[in-house]
């Protein structure tokens, strides 16, 4: 995006895009904080019947982890101006993120077929809502991933911005962290 500032790196040595993404992640964190709060509040009621966590979710978690590894790979490539490495890393990150989201929808299907319907128990409702909200944020990241990857694959060296790839990586790791916390909550409660 175009910056019009008198000077970049104006605040705490951060760029515009960094401030934007960090504040955005703060807002998303607040959103998940509220939803987990509501979850922890609601689970104390007597009618709460925990959802059996599908094994598929472990596989999905590994996929999201691999997506993050892909981003580390891409960032390292962007830093050293190794285009091939960046392209491979970005592709891996995107593909594994898509597999993660697809895996989540598959897990919902599994639960649904097993009779764990959305409205049959509050635990089910929360499970679907929390995982869907997270998947939605991964999808949002995939839109940004598409934009950056498209630029990188255009083979224009000037467009290969380590900052964009780096920030995308930060968001990927953040999504992994959020999922880690949510998943831990879902399997332990």
């Amino acid at each position, binding site marked *: *995006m*175009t*910056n*019009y*500032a*008198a*000077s*970049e790196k*104006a*605040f705490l040595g*951060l*760029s*515009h895009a960094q*401030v*934007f993404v960090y*504040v*955005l992640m*703060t*807002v998303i964190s*607040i*959103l998940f904080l*509220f*939803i987990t709060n*509501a979850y922890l*509040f*609601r689970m104390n*009621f007597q*009618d709460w019947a925990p959802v059996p966590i599908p094994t598929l979710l472990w596989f999905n978690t590994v996929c999201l982890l691999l997506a993050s590894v892909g981003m580390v790979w891409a960032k390292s490539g962007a830093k050293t101006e190794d285009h091939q490495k960046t392209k491979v890393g970005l592709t891996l990150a995107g593909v594994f993120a898509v597999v993660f989201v697809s895996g989540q929808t598959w897990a919902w299907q599994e639960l649904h077929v097993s009779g764990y319907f*959305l*409205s049959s128990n*509050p635990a089910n*409702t929360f499970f679907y*809502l929390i995982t869907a*909200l997270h998947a939605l944020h991964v999808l949002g990241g995939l839109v940004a991933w598409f934009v950056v990857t498209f630029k990188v694959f255009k083979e224009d060296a000037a467009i290969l911005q380590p900052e964009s790839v780096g920030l995308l990586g930060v968001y990927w790791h953040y999504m992994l962290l959020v999922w880690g916390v949510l998943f831990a909550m879902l399997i332990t409660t």
Partner: protein
Amino acid sequence: MDQNSATYEGQKMYDPKGWWDTYVFSQDHKIIALQYVCVALAIGLTGMFLSLLMRLQLGFPGLFESIDAGSYYQDVTMHGMIMVIYLLTALFLGGFGNYLIPLMLGCRDMAFPFVNMLSFWMYFLSVIILVASFFVESGPTGAGWTLYPPQSILEGTPGGDGAGIILMLASLAVFIVAFTMGGLNYITTVLQSRAKGMTLMRMPLIIWCIFLATFLGLLAFPALLVGAIMLIFDRVLETSFFMPEIFKGGEVLDYGGGSPVLFQHLFWFFGHPEVYIIALPAFGIISELISVHARKNIFGYNMMVWALIAIAGIAFIVWAHHMYVAGMNPYLGFFFATTTLIIAVPTAIKVYNWALTLWNANIKMTVPMLYCLAFLVTFLNGGLTGLFLGNVAVDVPLSDTYFVIGHFHMVMAVSPVLALFGGLYHWYPSVTGRMLDDRLGKIHFWITFIGTYLIYFPMHYIGFLGVPRRYYSNEQYDFIPQSVADLNQFITICTLIVGAAQFIMLYNLIKSLYKGAIAPKNPWDACTLEWQTLESPPGHGNWGEQLPVVYRWPYEYGLPSATADFVPQNVSDEQIT
């Protein structure tokens, strides 16, 4: 140089290609600000019209057959939601924020102009969805602006079993997305794009206010978003986040086990900061106007900034004072009553500082200054009744009466609107290059100011009598004396007059655009940067070739070494002498 394809500081600016790019899908912050203002004022007039319908029923019960109980509740609900969210939040942050942040900070545009444009169009979409609810079969929701479940999504509540409530919640969700896009832009621009020399403590107070209000919004709106999503689930997918076991006509509904109080917590965790999301920009406007039109530096700038930060922080730990009547642990009530009273301290600091700014000042009784003075007394009035309601023991008997309507409207409706009008009159010359008609402005001011007092002061008295708010009709209750009905007639007549007076302002805004006196570049002799642009009104890119450099704080009035009684922020000491 062609302003539309300028390259500044080695970076190419957004380049509008034609009329659509320049005026409709514009990425220029000034156009986006105007778009926000126009849409917000249009939907705000709708909200005002709904309040007139309400008042007609209350003043002359049964006279207008088209206003039945259902439509009355729909009017109440939509009036509240429109005014709080779609008018005031959008106008203060989307309108004033977009226009003033880049100009006052000395930058060319927002940090992310494209996202800024998306923010407006998402807001526009949210308004369209909201308005669409008037045209669905069951009409808009009539659940009250707090949308409390279970009643908000059940049959029997207007719009509850139709599309009304769904459209309301969907519109809110879209609005929150729009706000987040705009908010991220405001935060980034304030932190990153300030002109050379514009330190944080040299920023005009209105920028501080918008900045902090944006932070409040970004942290508070997610609570409403979560609440709205869960309520949509309950309504559409028959889940039971907020729905307890419900028996209807002897039948058990499919719901069960949900907690309506959970929704109240989510709603008010957003709802109370929302008060400050609206109040802080109003504070900011008053701080600017009072200093400029009293020709005096603002008293206690640092204290003002820290008071704002304190208000923004404490705003997050007072929300449950809206829920005393929902029932809560007495210790919790004590905690929230205490924090509520504590927030009065930084707020009082601001009021004292405004008053001290006026002390021995060279006060110009311009229209913006009239609005400032009106704001001060009105905010004080509304704030003081807030101290009553902040206490649990006083709030419980008064909470469901007209006392709350009186308090709320004085502090949260009339006060910000007075600031808003003051701001419109003050910055109109910067936006259009023309002055507003002073005489029409004063007529509008006096009718609005006196009129609103005649409307809302009596409501405190009605509230003390115990007249319940939210009731469609007060006729069947023995404890309500005839004098209340008389007073309600009087209030309704005043409301109609004040409502009609707003068209004076509207006429003034439109007429002055073509026939207003040509405004000098800095008509109020202000120090802040938005009046120091090369052209007036400022062109695309705001500053021509060179960005301004800031040498001083924004309230340099009455400097002994200067010949004029003000020194603009971009004038160095050498240039003064």
